[in-house]
């Protein structure tokens, strides 16, 4: 493993700048462009083709990285922890049951402050058996301390995966990042994407300096992950220092994510809203809140509803963890009704998880706003323009005081 920035010029630079690829391939191409040192993988639907693309990029000599076929996801992330501690730039991808099998090292990664980037090709929960997309896996681990950023398009998967390394490795952050791409609709959805030039990505990434805080170095032995906590001695304060540092860095990440998106837009000419995107929200009396690839259909529906005279807009959440409370409060400041569309279930509150999180934002707004929780797109179900017209109509009914007392199941009659 070499720490030096390698010569520019191989990797994706030899391909045409416009290509058609699926989201899984877009993620793999982005990984090749940031020149990682170590990859560790275990295939699982709908992530499998991402692993295949990574392996092919290595086999074809277009990516100079170690790639470890581990015996399971617990080992996958453990391998990367060692590599990250040794100063390597690391990447993996998983979803659903694979993420579940990874849970123990998943917890350990942010605590060790390791800037590992992992594509989460989101998949719905089992049981009943399902191999299709949904956000349930990502939502289940939203309090494990990872940054979680959701993509809307295949292009955004590519660009966000590159940016994720800069965010994770920033000195004020030093936390792992999940780039979330919707299973099925983004993982296998193929679209026209524009590749950034390799020299530009090299300049954007800069000199790598990943292991400044800890290092597996035989000449400089040190202990990592000490026993802390308990109720006596220095344990409780030490544990608390870890947790406060993680929380502080999550808040720092809100600023760093914005800065990195700004820098990326300035360099490559493609701008994505870093935390929250406001779409046609000027003068909107109601807002839909969306997450991930569903947003494209929602935008088309809102354009049609606007043409029909409805004052509706969209607030799309890109950065879900850390939760962009202030950005959301600003984006929703003027609206009289909010419909939140979740692609997963919140079993405890009988609503979608994003809806539940948004209730805290409403408290910040300081005024009651009628809201409705819509749950759809579970286990690969489609969320179409027609579905969003139904969501808009039901959200409009909130303006007249007709507030539902439970979630509305969008695909119930499909």
């Amino acid at each position, binding site marked *: 493993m070499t720490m030096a920035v390698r010569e520019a010029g191989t990797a994706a630079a030899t391909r*045409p700048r416009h290509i*058609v690829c699926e989201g899984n391939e877009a993620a793999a191409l982005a990984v090749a462009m940031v020149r990682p040192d170590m990859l560790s993988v275990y295939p699982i639907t709908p992530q499998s083709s991402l692993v295949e693309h990574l392996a092919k990029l290595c086999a074809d000599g277009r990516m100079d990285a170690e790639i470890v076929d581990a015996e399971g996801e617990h080992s996958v992330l453990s391998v990367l922890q060692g590599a990250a501690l040794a100063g390597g730039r690391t990447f993996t991808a998983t979803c659903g049951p694979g993420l579940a099998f990874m849970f123990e090292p998943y917890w350990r990664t942010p605590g060790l402050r390791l800037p590992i980037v992992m594509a989460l090709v989101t998949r719905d929960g089992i049981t009943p058996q399902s191999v299709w997309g949904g956000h349930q896996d990502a939502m289940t681990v939203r309090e494990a301390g990872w940054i979680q950023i959701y993509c809307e*398009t295949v292009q955004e998967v590519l660009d966000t995966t590159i940016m994720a390394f800069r965010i994770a490795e920033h000195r004020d952050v030093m936390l792992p990042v999940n780039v979330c791409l919707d299973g099925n609709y*983004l993982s296998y*959805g*193929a*679209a*026209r994407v524009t590749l950034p030039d390799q020299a530009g990505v090299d300049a954007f990434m800069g000199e790598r300096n990943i292991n400044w805080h800890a290092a597996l170095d035989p000449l400089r032995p040190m202990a990592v992950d000490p026993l802390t906590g308990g109720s006596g001695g220095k344990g409780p304060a030490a544990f608390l220092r870890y947790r406060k540092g993680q929380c502080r860095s999550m808040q720092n990440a809100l600023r760093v994510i914005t800065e990195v998106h700004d820098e990326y837009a300035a360099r490559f000419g493609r701008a994505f809203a870093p935390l929250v995107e406001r779409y046609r929200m000027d003068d909107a009396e109601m807002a839909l809140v969306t997450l991930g690839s569903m947003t494209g259909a929602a935008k088309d529906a809102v354009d049609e509803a606007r043409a029909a005279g409805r004052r509706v807009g969209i607030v799309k959440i890109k950065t879900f963890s850390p939760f962009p409370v202030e950005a959301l409060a600003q984006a929703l400041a003027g609206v009289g009704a909010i419909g939140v569309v979740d692609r997963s279930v919140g079993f405890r509150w009988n609503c979608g998880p994003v809806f539940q999180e948004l209730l805290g934002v409403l408290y910040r707004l300081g005024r009651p706003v009628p809201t409705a929780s819509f749950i759809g797109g579970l286990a690969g179900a*489609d969320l*179409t323009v027609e579905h969003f017209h139904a969501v808009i109509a039901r959200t409009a009914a909130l303006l007249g005081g007709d507030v539902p007392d439970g979630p509305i199941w969008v695909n119930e009659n499909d």
Partner: protein
Amino acid sequence: MMAAGLLAAGLVAEGKYAVAIPSFGFERRGAPVVAFVRADEREIRRMTNITHPDCVLCIDPTVGRSVDIFAGMRSGGTLVQTSGRALAELTLPAGLRTVGLIDAVRIAMEIFRRPITNTLMLGALARTTGIVSLAALEQALADSEFRDAGLDQNIAALGRGYRETQIHHLDREVAA
């Protein structure tokens, strides 16, 4: 799914925007699968399946027995179908305007010695609809993972699919 990706690549090579979304269950060779392709002059935002297609490309002669391949199809639409039978022998829905027919299985057996109809049917689609040129599809194939004999066979299949498709305009035939 591979064919859908090649079609999208061909459309993009001609300056269009395209999105291809496959839909399938457990991975098993020969299982019925469906893939959706949208093309537009503008960026396509909706990442969704297509429930009301303008054109159905059916690359298997038997799948219609287990799946209604015409479900939701728009009136005035186009069918591109592999079949060894004549047009009059096919059960077609009302409202269909154009049918491209080709016995792609027979040709595939000659080219590949296996009933792989994907690229043959892409050629048939290009011929029937004119939505994409044969040259753009050939370029998409050349840029794909195919190499050597596999590439040559598929280029040949594209060309034969393009040349050997019979196009039927149903309005005129009914009127005649």
